[in-house]
């Protein structure tokens, strides 16, 4: 459930993902992985290196550039008893597989009256500042969080990357898991033994009394950095990682906001109609009579991500913007 106090070893975020997939493939022969550049290439971010050597090309399947096609293969395989992991290299490309994800995977269990299950994992990425320009830098997890029938996980570190991936693979519903491509080399403690992280259970990453900062994915690290700066000026920030946007642990965030009476939501998706809006509204509704300030949110700037590094950096939430916003909410000059 929570990060172990003493971890014997550290893994990178990418290694944690790979370990989760490898362990689940050893545990369950129905698990296979399909996508572009996943076998010999080991994925552009080298997350899958070595898997094809262990499991062979029948379980680590390279495809042409054909997201709608191989996503459909995955959905069909899941309906007929397999447990596929469909690799969508960049989160931006889920737009290509959207019919398979939204209209097929999310619906089949319901439209078959529960006779069919679609135990599929779409693993993909989010996150800007990699200088990859507007078509390879978006964080589109709000799109799928919007769809009934889908579960959406956003691991915020190596420990979460392994635990949430294992839960996703074992879940009988379609799960979309977004990994922040900027975190693959981030190191953190990861238990060697088997563990899972339940969906719909938020984690308090840091306790505080003055403001609740709800942050997702790599924004958890940003929020924790801002919390340190806030502490220096006497503001105690409580940082909460929902870990999944659906199911969403509203109660944990409401309870925290009731305690602190202020809330700030940080997420790297576009701010407009975004994940931050959903979470902020849940807090505003659930903690209304305990709030001493409007619930604020910070998402990515509502622009196509610029190629210019200077401009790109300005579009995403940073420790500084989170710090300044939180400070203003707490009425500290």
């Amino acid at each position, binding site marked *: 459930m929570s990060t172990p106090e003493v971890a014997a070893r550290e893994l990178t975020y990418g290694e944690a993902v790979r370990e989760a997939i490898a362990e689940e493939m050893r545990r369950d022969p129905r698990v296979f992985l399909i996508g572009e550049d996943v076998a010999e290439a080991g994925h552009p971010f080298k997350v899958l290196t070595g898997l094809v050597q262990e499991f062979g090309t029948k379980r680590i399947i390279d495809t042409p550039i054909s997201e709608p096609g191989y996503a459909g293969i995955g959905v069909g395989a899941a309906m007929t008893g397999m447990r596929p992991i469909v690799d969508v290299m960049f989160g931006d490309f889920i737009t290509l597989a959207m019919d398979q994800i939204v209209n097929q995977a999310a619906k089949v269990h319901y439209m078959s009256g529960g006779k069919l299950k679609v135990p599929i994992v779409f693993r993909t990425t989010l996150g800007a500042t990699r200088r990859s320009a507007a078509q390879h830098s978006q964080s589109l997890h709000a799109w799928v969080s919007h769809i009934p029938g889908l579960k959406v996980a956003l691991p915020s570190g190596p420990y979460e990357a392994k635990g949430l991936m294992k839960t996703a693979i074992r879940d009988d519903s379609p799960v979309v898991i977004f990994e922040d491509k900027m975190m693959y080399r981030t190191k953190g403690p990861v238990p060697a033994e088997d563990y899972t992280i339940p969906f719909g259970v938020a984690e308090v990453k840091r306790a505080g009394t003055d403001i609740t900062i709800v942050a997702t994915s790599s924004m958890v690290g940003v929020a924790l950095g801002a919390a340190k700066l806030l502490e220096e000026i006497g503001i105690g920030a409580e940082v909460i990682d929902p870990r999944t946007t659906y199911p969403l642990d509203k109660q944990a965030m409401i309870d925290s906001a009731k305690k602190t*009476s202020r809330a700030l939501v940080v997420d790297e998706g576009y701010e407009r109609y975004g994940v931050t809006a959903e979470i902020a509204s849940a807090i505003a509704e659930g903690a*209304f*009579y*305990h*709030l*001493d*300030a409007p619930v604020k949110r910070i998402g990515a700037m509502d622009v196509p991500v610029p190629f210019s590094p200077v401009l790109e950096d300005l579009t995403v939430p940073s420790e500084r913007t989170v710090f300044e916003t939180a400070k203003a909410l707490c*009425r500290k000059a």
Partner: protein
Amino acid sequence: MPTDVIMPALEMAQETGKVLKWLKAPGHAVRKGEPIVEIETDKVTVEIEAPASGVLRDVTARAGDVVPVGKTIALIFAPGEAGAAGPAAPVGPAAGGVPTGAVASPPPAAPAVKASPAGDGTAARLTAASPKARRLAAERGLDVSALRGSGPGGAVLAGDVVAAKVPVAEGVGTVWRIMAERMTASWTTAPHFYLVREVNVSRLVSWRERASKHTGARITYTDLLVKLVAATLSQHPGVNASWQDGAIVRNADINIGLAVAIDDGLVVPVLHRADTLRLVDIAARREDVVSRAQAGKLRAADIQGGGFTISNLGMYGVDAFTAIVNPPQAAILAVGRIADRVVAVNGQPVVQPTMMLTLSCDHRALDGARGAQFLGALAELIEEPLALLV
């Protein structure tokens, strides 16, 4: 026919009673004689018992409601009686049966809400304040619009409410509130006058010692005073009276109330027909009601029917004081401490134990002469209790 549960009249002049708390919920079975509701009058809080066994239904008075005496506040249906089982007559269409979404007949449109003119609560809304600040202000009984706001545009924030200086209001209990109301009523309606007399209590002191030794009971000066006041009242019935609707009403019995300080305030339990009681009985009754008063376990009967009140502050070292008449009674006797005082006897200064008595009178029911005659007779009895025998 179901049995009515009515708002009872616990006192003569009572017009309304307040429902404090239902001890049984509608639909629950009750047994005859079982307490079902707590009622507060302007004198006391009592539990009302079920007048019959059955199922409590049709509760029309909620906690906090003030209801005229005699009004039905609930019904008790006998077991098996129509209405005893099942819910009370349903209001509106029955729930269930009609699947959600299937609209057989459209629900009646909500009655159009008349646009309310500014004024009712709108003023408070004009003050910018955070939800938390509003909640905290309401909890503290503060008006947010009266607070200085430190938020954006002068909005009142929680911190402003917390920092606001509030007069520390100490919540008072029912007993205290009733005392306050009754004393105000007496002070503002009964024209008071006071008669003061210092009495020699040498005999009273020795009498108390002998009575205690003789009976083995703990006899107090208050007990002796009850006995002597009762005897004096029987000779001066005009003092055992009250002013009611333009007439002086004499009380049938001699019922003497004792002002008793308890944690919550002041209560006046009554020793009924004190003139018929022996000293030991007075002591026993007094001990019983005073200890129950202090434990908050007085019953309605304990405080009803008082015709005259004694208030003794001698144990607090008070020499003399003037009391406020306990309405609707005509008089109250305020008793000071017994102390050795220098008095003139036959032209010589002599030291004697004396006590200061102050009789407060309602001038509508008593005049100075009648009050003085009563006080004189009482003083003579105190100075020579033997007169009781004659």
